[in-house]
């Protein structure tokens, strides 16, 4: 019990220190500034590598949603409404959540394993010995990259889902793409798009901070790295679902 409380406390401290370090890391002078090269590298590693899989998964999800909805809606003569439902479900819910789960598998586990291996190899101590703050040097670039790329991936994922559903509409539901697009756009509001992106940004923060925390907590060599890498995936997915529930509840009560 005490260990769990200590762990939550440590996590809170890392979260606070990391978020507080973002501003100075972006705008300070040399020695305290974020390395742009490092940020670019992390954005590539975390985001760009996940792009094909997010696109594929989201296109499939769009297609699945369309095929699941259409027969029920056809009973009421509302097949074109399929586009509305797919767009709404994707932009508000499925886009950010599914992209985040994919990013957890791709980026979160990689971050935890990389930092964990650095702990085992005395690299974190070496950074500190050179008066280089590991939070600024390791955590902040991953955090910023994860938030930016999560938002980008969500936008791409949303579009991929719409295209997937559009293809199903054209092939099996006699909905031409223009009709599909008009239906989808008619219903969607800026709020739907923005709430999805807010979620995506928070998910990005969660993925990176949990991965960095568990990476830095690695003890006991290679086995410790393996344990905390798998723990990162499990804990992040649970945290994503809980956060999603929280946001959906808040947006529901606020009428967004």
């Amino acid at each position: 019990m005490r260990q769990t409380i200590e762990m939550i406390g440590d996590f809170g401290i890392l979260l606070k220190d990391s978020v507080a370090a973002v501003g100075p890391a972006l705008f300070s002078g040399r020695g305290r500034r974020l390395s742009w090269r490092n940020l670019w590298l992390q954005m590539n590693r975390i985001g760009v590598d996940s792009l094909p899989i997010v696109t594929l998964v989201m296109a499939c999800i769009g297609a699945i949603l369309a095929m699941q909805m259409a027969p029920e809606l056809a009973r009421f003569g509302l097949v074109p409404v399929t586009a509305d439902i797919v767009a709404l479900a994707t932009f508000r819910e499925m886009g950010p959540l599914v992209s985040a789960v994919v990013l957890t598998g791709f980026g979160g586990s990689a971050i935890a394993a990389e930092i964990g291996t650095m702990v085992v190899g005395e690299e974190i101590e070496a950074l500190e010995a050179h008066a280089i703050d590991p939070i600024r040097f390791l955590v902040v670039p991953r955090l910023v990259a994860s938030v930016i790329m999560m938002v980008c991936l969500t936008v791409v994922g949303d579009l991929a889902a719409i295209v997937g559903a559009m293809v199903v509409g054209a092939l099996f539901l006699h909905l031409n793409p223009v009709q599909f697009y008009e239906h989808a756009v008619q219903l969607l509001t800026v709020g739907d798009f923005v709430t999805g992106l807010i979620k995506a940004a928070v998910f990005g923060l969660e993925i990176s901070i949990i991965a960095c925390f568990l990476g830095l907590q690695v003890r006991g060599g290679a086995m410790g790295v393996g344990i905390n890498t798998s723990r990162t995936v499990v804990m992040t997915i649970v945290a994503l679902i809980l956060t999603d529930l929280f946001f959906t509840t808040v947006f529901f009560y606020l009428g967004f």
Partner: protein
Amino acid sequence: MAPIIQIKNLRKSFGDRVLYEDLTIDLVPGETLVVMGGSGSGKSTLLRILMGHLTYDGGNVLVHTHELSQFSRRELNAWRLSVGVLFQTGALFNSMTLRENLALPVREHTDLPEELIDIMIKIYLQLVGLRDSIDRMPSELSGGMKKRGGLARALMMQPRILFYDEPTAGLDPVSSAQVAQLILDLKEKMNVTSVVITHDMKAAFAVADRLALLAERRFHMVGRPEEFRTTTDPLVRQFVDGLLDGPLSAKADQKAYEADLLKRETL
């Protein structure tokens, strides 16, 4: 000359395990102090305490007469920048080439142009005999090369003090001799003050101005190499000469072993 570091009555424990009860020693500018001790005696922990990576339970660690535990983040960083550390494994950053490893601290803390940083890198790599490996990844280097690379990186900020954690451990005799010679060269050419943690007697006697033997939770003996060579203290003799019998051989071990066996039998 005023000591750089004064350790007074230092106490440190991990849970129930007491590592130091009463550790006292000074580090004088320009000297090479070799700290020896058996495995698990807390040699590396002492370096971690001196670098501010670990806290201590009691006593004092004074750096230029200021208490280390009271240092602000800024003071601690300034202290760390004045010290170069060679880690046991070299601790090179595995995702970077040797060149990038050496450039990192300079890029982080100075505004020196890249051309100058590159020249510095080549000078220090030449010093440790690794200039040909400048663009190699750490995974492509042998254990001894990693250590020498770690030493070159430690030198990039031109520290006045160097801490070496087991610099010759795991190296073949020739590589050990090369590293020991490097320690001597650095003292001679750069006049650095050094703390060397080792249990390699040959290297210890080769580089030391003073030796300190960490045993039984304190410095059992501190003195010049000649004193260690000539002392009749049984504990020092056993450690230095690598004798099987002596005070360091845990006499209680046999009893503990028997008790452990009997306990297992009753289970």
